[in-house]
């Protein structure tokens, strides 16, 4: 009995330790190949249609935007911005933008991992969270989910598929966190190694532009990378406190983090969505 108590205490203690998972994306390395988008779709059972070209209605948890410096040849330069859920923490009296507005508690901010979750079985489709998110990371299931015949056999068994009429978004591959955690527990560990929990997009990136880890842990690469003087976050001024950091050595590239000012930022024109 004593041992049980001891274990319970230890378990509780493990939960007191908190992480802040986040990403650092090196925009100088990103080639815009879209491998992260494909990996994300396959990993997270994202449904798609035969003609998936309508970007305003397609399910993409990870989306790559393309910006350019707008200069004529030969000074033209482009940059790609991969944009998963920013897993905002909020700051001051502001909570995560989407979490505080959900009327049915279908989305939550985990203080253990820093991950913003989405409970599909509880979402009833009011889409208030989508209105609250300035990053457009939340997508709605405008159709019933479908896959080409036979492909449903290849769906990831760890990730539930979502029905029509609910909102979904990037979960930082939370099932991978759970799997890694289970494995560590089975091996009698309470801590995860950095490489034990990595998101699908991070692993798929051929250029190694995405780095994922615990932003609070000095042993993790992201801890150092986020301190780069070229690092910035999207819409930092609004106080959303996102956990995705971007690194760009190009001045005009870092302007992407600013709030829309009615015109494209100086030098950045020809905005297209990859």
């Amino acid at each position, binding site marked *: 009995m004593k041992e049980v108590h001891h274990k319970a205490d230890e378990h509780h203690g493990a939960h007191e330790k908190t992480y802040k998972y986040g990403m650092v994306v090196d925009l100088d390395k990103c080639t815009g190949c879209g491998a992260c988008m494909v990996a994300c779709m396959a990993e997270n059972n994202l449904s798609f249609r035969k003609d998936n070209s309508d970007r305003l209605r397609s399910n993409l948890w990870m989306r790559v935007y393309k910006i350019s410096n707008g200069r004529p040849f030969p000074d033209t330069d482009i940059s790609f911005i991969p944009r998963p859920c920013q897993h905002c923490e909020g700051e001051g009296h502001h*909570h995560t933008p989407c979490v505080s*507005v959900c009327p*049915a508690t279908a989305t939550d901010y985990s203080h253990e991992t820093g991950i913003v979750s989405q409970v599909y079985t509880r979402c009833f489709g009011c*889409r208030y969270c989508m*209105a609250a*998110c300035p990053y457009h990371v939340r997508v*709605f299931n405008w159709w019933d989910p479908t896959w080409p015949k036979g492909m449903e056999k290849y769906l990831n068994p760890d990730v539930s598929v979502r029905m029509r009429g609910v909102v979904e978004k990037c979960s930082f591959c939370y099932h991978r966190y759970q799997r890694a955690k289970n494995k560590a527990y089975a091996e009698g560990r309470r801590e995860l190694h950095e490489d034990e929990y990595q998101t699908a997009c991070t692993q798929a990136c051929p250029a190694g532009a995405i780095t994922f880890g615990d932003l609070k842990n000095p042993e993790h690469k992201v801890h150092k990378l986020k301190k780069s003087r070229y690092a910035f976050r999207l819409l930092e001024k609004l106080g959303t406190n996102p956990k995705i950091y971007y690194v760009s050595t190009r001045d005009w590239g870092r302007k992407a983090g600013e709030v829309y000012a009615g015109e494209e930022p100086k030098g950045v024109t020809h*905005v297209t969505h990859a």
Partner: protein
Amino acid sequence: MDSASAPFDSALFPEGVKRCKFKWFLFWLAVLHGPLMVGVIAMLMCWGLALHVTYLNNNYPFGLWIAADLGIIALGAGAFFTGFLRYIVNIEELKNIVNYAVVIGVVCYAAAQGILGVDIGQPLRGWFIFWHANVHSMLTEVAFCITCYFMVLCIEYFPLILENRQINKLRFFHGMAHHLHGAMPTIAAVGVFLSFFHQGSLGGVPGVLYGRPFAYREGFLVWPWTFFLFILSAIACGPCFTILVTWITEKCAGKRLVKRNVIDILAKISGRLLVLYLVLKTLDTVYWVAIAGKAGAPLSSFYANQPFGYWVLITELGILGVIPAIILLNAKARQNENILIIACILNCTGIFMNRWIMTVQALAVPVMSFDKFISYRPNWVEYASTLMFVWLGAVVIMLSYRYLPIFPQEKELNPS
């Protein structure tokens, strides 16, 4: 009444009033039936085929439906506010219009809930908002208060049904109606409490979106300034909507139903509140420009993309705000029925436009610097399913007018 020429259902009419022939009544019901059925088809398409049948998309999760919802609820504020003035402030004359304000309120709130039922992708999960309520969400407050207030409106409408000439002959129903009338101040007080909160929370819905500088407002405690502005604008336009619908009903019925002095009281109060609203709204706008500018979004960025140019701001506050306020404050202008009705139309349109701006324009303004402006317009499915509730409302009003004693002054104004 000459029994030979009276419609066959005349025994159900209120005492001493005339109504059109039953066949004409049926004819107009059939006319309304057409667009109503189109709306039903649109609604079934949304539920059966999923929401891709609309023009909503991931950039515009809110569209006509939510804007209409906010607008309808603001217009329906005439019910609680007239009730408040009649039963709590005790303005005796308003007893001649309070019944009709309740009927209009029932229609508006039923419509608002119906539209929300179509708007959510999963109507069968609608109860989650109650069961898994997140009390920090403005939408939760809205849902709870609207549902409760709709119950209050039904209880206020209930004695009117019981006062139908035939139903009222039964002693129990007669007594029930009598006691409900006695309890009306308490019921109205509950209604006022609920209404203040949900009108405000509807303002809080866009006001708390700090990720969108166009909509975000600072505020008092947990309530952004829009919370208070929405309450004020709703009680400034609600009475005007009651006047407007009463006028339309009078035109359709071909006779006067409410005395001018009663209408004038509502118009005067509406005008004063509208002025107060405009003053506060102007202050809010100035403050908002400063706050948004600090966050990196200059005023010009909000109006950089057509169709949401500066004309929106000028139209909302100037043409649809200042002009009706001037008319409603002027006693002479109020006496002229046509001018009064124009003021009411401008006022109601202004509030509706405000709700559209706070929902749709709030989503239209890009936030990330590399975002593209995307335009939105509703498609026929959205229009039809929204208007369906207008037709349904017309049917409820027709039935209520024909069979229930809604206008106490009708007999006096139209001696047979």
